[in-house]
């Protein structure tokens, strides 16, 4: 009998009223979120992220690990803007937040952390080992490839017998994407020396270089490579005789 009495009591409560849904909508309407303002804020935060990555990708050859927390912070801010305003969680019943929040906090986040901790150690070791082997003394050492800034592009024109432009500069460890446009009438290539210029001034005779791009007459060749340790290097065409004839450029790694 007590149960029978309890039920009608609860239905009188305002939040159990079927009209509550309408009331909730009225609440959202009343709040009138400035959606365009939210969008502008999201765009600004994204622009800041892109700015950080493209402007401060490598300061004085230092590691860029420091920017990761900032980027993650900006990402969380953007995510919250989407969830709270576009997905209305800020104005909706707290129950939705609880369901979603429980999913994120109880499952998703611990899983990401667990994955990284369970699967990462061998990976971290190998990176450290590499850094120790190829390290230039005790300082920063080569950074993990994942933290190097965005790759640079080098669009060169090749012909008989020149490269235009004939100079290229990159940061150590940075990716370089080469596009060689052959405007000449014979095949040309883009190769870089393995050793600095001071140790090997003619890599085309010692054959100590690697070909990155290859372009038959009148077409374009593409390739990419990672800039080596700092120094002055050469890039050249490895077709016999071409480098001697002048198809050489300087490649500076900072």
């Amino acid at each position, binding site marked *: 009998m007590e149960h029978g009495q309890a039920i009608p009591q609860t*239905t009188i409560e305002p939040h*159990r009223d*079927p009209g*509550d*849904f309408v009331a909730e*909508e009225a609440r*959202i*309407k009343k709040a009138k979120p400035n*959606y*365009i303002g*939210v*969008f502008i804020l999201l*765009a600004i935060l*994204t622009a800041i*992220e*892109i700015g*950080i*990555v493209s402007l401060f990708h490598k300061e004085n050859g230092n590691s860029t690990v420091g*920017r*990761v927390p900032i*980027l*993650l912070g*900006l*990402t969380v801010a*953007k*995510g919250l803007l*989407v*969830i709270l*305003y*576009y*997905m209305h969680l800020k104005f909706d*019943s707290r*129950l*939705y937040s609880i*369901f*979603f929040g429980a*999913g*994120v906090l109880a*499952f*998703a*986040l611990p*899983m*990401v952390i667990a*994955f*990284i901790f369970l699967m*990462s150690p061998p*990976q971290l070791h190998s*990176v450290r080992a590499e850094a120790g082997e190829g390290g230039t003394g005790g300082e920063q050492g080569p950074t*993990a*490839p*994942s*933290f190097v800034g*965005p*790759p640079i592009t080098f669009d060169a024109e090749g012909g008989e017998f020149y490269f235009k432009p004939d100079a290229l500069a990159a940061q150590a*460890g940075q*990716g370089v*994407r080469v596009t060689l446009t052959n405007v000449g009438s014979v095949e040309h290539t883009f190769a870089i020396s393995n050793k600095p210029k001071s140790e090997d001034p003619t890599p085309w005779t010692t054959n100590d270089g690697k070909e990155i791009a290859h372009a038959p007459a009148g077409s374009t060749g*593409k390739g*990419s490579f*990672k800039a080596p340790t700092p120094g002055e290097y050469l890039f050249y065409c490895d077709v016999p005789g071409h480098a001697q004839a002048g198809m050489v450029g300087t490649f500076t790694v900072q």
Partner: protein
Amino acid sequence: MSAVGKLEQAGHHVGESVEQVVDETHAQVAHAETTTGLDHRKLVMWVFIASETIFFAALMATYLVYRGKTPYEEGVGLLDLNVASLNTFILLASSLTMVMSLQAIENKKKGRMIVFLILTTILGLAFLGGQAYEYGKLLQEGISLDTNLFGATFFVLTGFHGSHVAIGVLWIIMLIIRALRGGISEHNHLSVELGGLYWHFVDLVWVVLFTIIYLI
């Protein structure tokens, strides 16, 4: 490539079943009285979003774990930040148009809602176009699902997200058709709200993907 096909198929099934739930419950127009005082269709949508979050978290964790195991110039170095940035702005703008369409119908402006839904569809398709362009460039460079760890994790992660965008676009097109047939009114627009929640969730996932793939 067959793996991508399977993944996309799986994604479609998820989308279909959700759409089915929405459709079935849509029949009862009036918001039935519930123990929570909330519309359970919306609650189901939030539970679904939470489960999708867990699903994407697993894929992201996998990507992060294998990141850096592929040489830079054969992996992350081949990505184009410009295309990804443009796609980010496109998807953020599509969230704005989506929320504007919901606001329009709440303000009893059905025509305006349809216009914003169409804009959202166009932006969604533009995003997919950008992704197709990006995939094309990577394939041109010889990177595919089975080339290396980067290819595998990158294509699975972005492929799943892309298929969610595609499902979202189809969902919105269905909303437009339903609206044109008179199935959506200022008193009955929960379907727009649910479609919107799904669409914003897809945008939210991209906000995170953009950072972990292209920025850090």
